[in-house]
């Protein structure tokens, strides 16, 4: 059974038709890359999986998205619970103005966990998971802003991991980072894919080939092609995909 299933998804911002009849199925522990030119709808689609678009007024969703067989837009769904299960890492590192420790502990605290020993354990585990522990273990009480941009982004990944989600959404997580930090984040994605189902939006096609199992190419609100990453980048079935990956537009 697939982990995530999107059926006939249409999405409107006001009168703008941003996503057109998207169907997609993602298996557990797969890494899927969304590629496509700016404004093609890939980020909009990503933000549907944790209902982040709910925050934007005057939008409309048709169709159905299920995670673990549950329609996440059903009335009975608790959005906060959903977001605990579907973590998100944003384009720009956005740590809170708190200490490194409190940044990671935040998700646990807001979800009602009071046991300090457990929180400390989860903070360490998450920071280790995000390959940041060795760099920050001596300055956990220091401000998160004392970290470099790349470290901040890994802190945000640790923060997302701390609440034990099963899905991680990454919206161009390396676009604001230097090449070395980018390599670290990509390496990290490789390491954590055994525990998570990951969807990553990227503008960087090398990145898509490096990190993903499957790639979805979006263009003008439509899902043009969705296949194994290898196939997409070596032998795409659609001409638009071919044009985009060879750099003829976008």
């Amino acid at each position: 059974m697939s982990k995530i299933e999107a059926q006939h998804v249409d999405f409107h911002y006001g009168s703008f038709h941003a996503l057109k009849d998207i169907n997609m199925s993602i298996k557990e522990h797969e890494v899927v890359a969304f590629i496509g030119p700016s404004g093609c709808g890939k980020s909009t689609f990503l933000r549907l999986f944790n209902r982040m678009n709910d925050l934007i007024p005057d939008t409309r969703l048709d169709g159905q998205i299920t995670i673990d067989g549950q329609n996440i837009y059903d009335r009975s769904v608790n959005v906060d619970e959903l977001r605990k299960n579907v973590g998100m890492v944003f384009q720009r590192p956005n740590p809170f103005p708190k200490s490194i420790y409190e940044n990671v502990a935040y998700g646990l605290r807001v979800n009602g966990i009071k046991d300090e020993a457990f929180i400390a354990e989860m903070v360490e585990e998450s920071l280790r998971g995000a390959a940041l522990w060795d760099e920050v273990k001596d300055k956990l009480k220091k401000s998160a802003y004392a970290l470099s941009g790349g470290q901040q982004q890994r802190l945000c990944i640790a923060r997302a991991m701390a609440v034990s989600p099963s899905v991680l959404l990454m919206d161009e997580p390396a676009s604001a980072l230097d090449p070395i930090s980018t390599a670290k984040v990509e390496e990290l994605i490789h390491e954590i894919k055994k525990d998570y189902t990951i969807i990553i939006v990227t503008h960087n096609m090398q990145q898509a080939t490096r990190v993903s199992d499957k790639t979805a190419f979006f263009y003008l609100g439509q899902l043009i092609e969705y296949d194994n990453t290898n196939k997409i980048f070596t032998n795409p079935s659609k001409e638009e995909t071919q044009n985009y990956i060879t750099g003829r537009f976008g």
Partner: protein
Amino acid sequence: MDNKNISVNNHARKMLAQNVAFTTFRILSGVIVTILFIILAFIIIKGASVLNWDFITTPPTDGMKGGGIWPAIVGTFYLMVGSALFAFPLGIMSGIYMNEYASHGKIVKFIRMMTNNLAGIPSIVFGLFGMSLFVNFFGFGDSILAGSLTLGLLALPLVIRTTEEALKAIPNSFREGSLALGATKLQTIWHVILPMGMPNIITGLILALGRVSGETAPILFTCAAYFLPQLPESVFDQCMALPYHLYVLATSGTDMDKQIPIAYGTALVLVIIILFVNLLANALRNYFQNKLKTN
């Protein structure tokens, strides 16, 4: 050759224009600072002669021809605290509501317009309104309670607007970051947004306090007493206040030679209090900003 001349000429003209503009700006800023200093110097020169420990710790004597202004200082303090207790929670909550919960609808646009209008109402009108609502209708009488509520109304739009502006300045990525971890909207506001907005909110609050401390018209019909030998004992008592005391001494004194210096002394004390309040605003702002960095 010609081309070179044109460019040199052009450059010279641009430099001249820039120099003229900068000199004008410099002179104008100088004028403003000078005016402020003249006002301060004027008050200090006229008021310093009466300013001593007794002046700020004893009540007026001899039909306000002598003694100090202690009851007026205390009264102003009570009014500041009272109006803050009323306006701060209400204003901050309104500001949060307007920016975090409902920032897109027509209703909010309407509320915002009304808030701005409220800020533009002359303070004497607040005074009349406070008299008819708090003093008469609610039956609080001329009292610290009625005066505080009236001053609170005056401060309310200031508090709402600073809160709204402070929260608006916080990038959405922080809200999304918190919500994406499963935090509720309220938790996001309480744990992330409010602490980040606090330095700016505090500054606005304290500036509103400074404004309140100097207002005369709103307390004219609602609270201020001409002369009270003893300090107020409850919120239903009247009190003296510095700006009103100053107004009374300067307009309806019986012995101008003795009372004008007292009036200037009162003005000096009021200005010093407002100055301290503003310095406090700066200190608190720095404190919260540093706390934000390390917490």
